[in-house]
């Protein structure tokens, strides 16, 4: 097994760890660069956002450590509670007076010193819940449509709460992640196609039913038609990316971050990165996400074979959650997808996202460790067979 090392009793996947550390580092550098002028102007401290992000990363590392030290079986048993908790916090944010509204979206709970975005931990909890559901209802899933539809109804309920915020992007990522988990978890292809078409239809209807979402859609189709209004953000993003060329304008030398590109340190941090580091830097980031996605997805079948399907599904779910969000965010930055208000995991400024993503990666690392332990206990023949 390449990239494995036993440290004490914990097995660590080197490639995965290196990719995560690299992304987090690139994230810090890019946030620092992208937010320095904004922070200086808004707060008077150039490194305000970077410092806060670094603090969140430290908390995230702690959360990842706890996840790595906690047996997955505990999460399996707690999964119904996790799902209830997810619904609870998604509902709390909608209670008037508790939710904190930014740019017309009520996505945050203001805890005084800290603003929490409940959709982040809720999505992680629901991924864990769906993984346990698939394991518990395997027979029903492979036998009838209801086995497939039931979890989708749960997710649909969560989506309704997310759309009430509104957080369309989070709903899309959650739905797609769960569909992916059900697909890997053995859903019948015809059920899958049926539900997929219903889900796509519902999302399309949602997209077209609200004028603001429609405006965003139209803006993305031809941003240059109205570059100063609906196409403003995207054209600024495209200009930033175009300025990067092969090698970038150089670290810290982005011009678009100087108030031209809105949300330069959050949703559109990739554009600043592309401007400063060019094709080379952007490709590196895509590649590093590729490493995480690959490591998570290959762990699925391997875990199942080792008798740990829950661990495999959680790992697959994490890969989907991070991968989908990354690909969608980059696609938005590149003008391939409509603007969504999604951040780039591990790179964008966003403290809840940083903590939850690292915690999720901690679960992935724990799953890897348990799978590795289980494989060691398997007969040599089985291991041979797996090869």
């Amino acid at each position, binding site marked *: 097994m390449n990239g494995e090392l036993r440290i004490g009793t914990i097995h660590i996947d080197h490639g995965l760890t290196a990719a995560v550390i690299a992304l987090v580092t690139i994230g810090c550098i890019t946030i620092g660069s992208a937010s320095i002028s904004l922070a200086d102007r808004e707060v008077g401290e150039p490194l305000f956002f970077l410092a806060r992000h670094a603090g969140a990363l430290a908390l995230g590392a702690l959360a990842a450590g706890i996840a790595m030290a906690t047996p997955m079986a505990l999460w399996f048993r707690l999964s119904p509670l996790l799902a209830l908790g997810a619904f609870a916090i998604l509902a709390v944010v909608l209670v008037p007076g508790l939710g904190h509204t930014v740019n017309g979206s009520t996505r945050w709970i203001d805890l005084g010193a800290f603003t929490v975005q409940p959709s982040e931990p809720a999505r992680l909890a629901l991924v864990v819940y769906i993984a346990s559901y698939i394991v518990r209802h395997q027979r029903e899933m492979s036998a009838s449509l209801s086995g497939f539809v039931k979890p989708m109804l749960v997710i649909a309920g969560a989506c309704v709460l997310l759309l009430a915020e509104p957080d369309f992007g989070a709903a899309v990522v959650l739905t797609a992640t769960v569909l992916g988990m059900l697909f*890997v978890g053995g859903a019948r292809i015809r059920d899958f196609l049926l539900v997929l078409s219903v889900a796509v239809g519902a999302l399309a209807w949602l997209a077209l039913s609200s004028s603001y979402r429609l405006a965003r859609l139209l803006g993305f189709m031809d941003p240059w038609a109205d570059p*100063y209004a609906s196409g403003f953000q995207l054209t600024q993003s495209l200009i930033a990316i175009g300025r990067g060329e092969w090698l970038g304008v150089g670290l810290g030398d982005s011009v678009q971050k100087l*108030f031209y590109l809105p949300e330069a340190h959050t949703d559109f941090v990739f554009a600043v990165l592309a401007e400063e580091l060019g094709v080379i830097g952007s490709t590196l980031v895509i590649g590093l996400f590729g490493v995480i996605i690959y490591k998570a*997805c290959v762990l*699925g079948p391997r875990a*199942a074979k080792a008798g740990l399907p829950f661990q495999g599904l959680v790992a697959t779910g994490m890969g989907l959650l991070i991968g989908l969000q990354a690909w969608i965010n980059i*696609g938005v930055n590149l003008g391939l997808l409509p603007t969504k208000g999604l951040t780039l995991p591990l790179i964008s400024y966003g403290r809840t996202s940083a903590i939850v993503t690292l915690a999720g990666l901690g679960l992935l690392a724990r799953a890897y460790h348990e799978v590795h332990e289980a494989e060691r206990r398997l007969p040599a023949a089985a291991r041979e067979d797996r090869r």
Partner: protein
Amino acid sequence: MSRRRRRAQVSLQRWRSAVLLISFAVAAAALEARLVYLQVVDQAFLVEQGDDRHLRTVQISAHRGSIVDRNGEPLAVSAPVDTIWANPQELRGAIDRIGQLAGVLELEEDWVLRRVTSNLDKNFVYLRRHLRPDHAARVLQLGLPGVATLREYRRYYPSGEVTGHLLGFTNIDDQGQEGLELAYDYWLRGESGQKRVLRDRLGRIIEDVELIAAAKPGRELRTSIDLRVQYLAYRELKRAIADSSALSGSVVVLDVHTGEVLAMVNQPSYNPNDRSQLDVANYRNRAVTDIFEPGSSFKPFVVAAALETGRYDASSTIDTSPGYLRVGNRVITQDYNDLGRIDLATILARSSNVGVGKLALDLEQRQLFGVLSGLGIGRLTESGFPGESAGVLNDPEYWRPVGQATLAYGYGLSVTALQLARAYATIAADGVQRPVSLVAADAAPPGRQVISATTARAVKNMLETVVSPAGTGLRAAIPNYRVAGKTGTAKKSVVGGYSEDRYFAIFAGLAPVSDPRLVTVVVIDEPRGEDYYGGEVAAPVFSAIVSGAMRLLAVPPDALQTTYVARSGGGR
């Protein structure tokens, strides 16, 4: 397949994970393709779009040259100020914050709103010009899109109203409008340059990309003015005008050696730094723009013309009996007393109209005109000051005998204070006339001998008797210096003749007599107190200014009076 089902109830089929991975890989390939398309293929278009937004050609305002006095003291300096302008197309996006902007700009919200909305086809409108840099910084702090500053310069005049008339002022575009600012605009004016800059979206300049044309700053103008003398003259004139409730007044101080104007002040004045309460009438530099009939202060020039004929000398006498002069059947001239037969010096000392009138009538018209014109009467000076008047001296062709006699004591012609000063300076410089200059001269410019040195010295010595107990100008005297000069009290010309109760009080003089350094002319328009004679109203002003100036310029005394001061406190 069968193998997997055998082993675990839940099997994660490897092909399904593979489908997932392939989907991610396909999406990644799409992202990568788009990335390369944007960064390599479409790059030129995007960079151009970026440059359209980031790059601006901005004007580099050139610093206008300072105006300093002869010793380098600043008289007019350009201080940096910031002008707030807006790009209405960009500011449109923040139209709801116009009220905030107007508040900080201290402007009417409606006005700002109209200015933006009615200029949406433009890229540049001024919002407020010439703000102090700290005020402009507060405007920028609002962070409104399309609102930016432009560095400009505003003129400040440290000596305010003391030099107001002389310097004039500039308009908001830094162009000279009046006075020396206008006369030497070509010299002071800078040439603004242009540069291409990289701006952030708030309009702040991040980087200079390219210099298109460098700004050429204006040059410094060193004037002939001595600020110390100017202050002194201003103070004394202002006091005299107030004390005598006069309408207006002027003082000119010339350097006899070089023709430079050391001081030129007027009342009433104005403060060029605060033009909000300006009375346009007060803009005039009366010393060069306003003309008046010089009255008796003109007499020395007629005496000089008489001496120039060679038929008269210092000992020549004129019979002024019976104290009046008839031309034809009209009494045109009267003295206060019958002075009898008196010499030329006494004519000046006692300011005899009859004596000088007789003298004038005895002179050939062309010769008299030639001497007066040579002294600069009726001719512009070389000062180059905008709006200067040349005064009036008619051609002899139009003279009648009556006119020739009244001309002799300063009626029927007019001069400016500067012209009068130039003529006295010519006498002071032994008949050599040097161009009058408001700009500092490094060396005395060559002069022109317009009357003989002998004549000039004779007149100068006669004028000294005016400032004596026997003359009308005793109050012009200065301790320790010999002073020569002439008083003048001219009735103001009114419709249908001359006023009987409105006068110009004049004193023109030079000091020190042994080697004249300064010529000073004091003109006071309509003193309304009990005193209105030049010798009473203008002469003390002359004395105060010249005595102070002598000290300031360290002119050696030529009549040192030894004063014994009783020593006190020889032991208690």
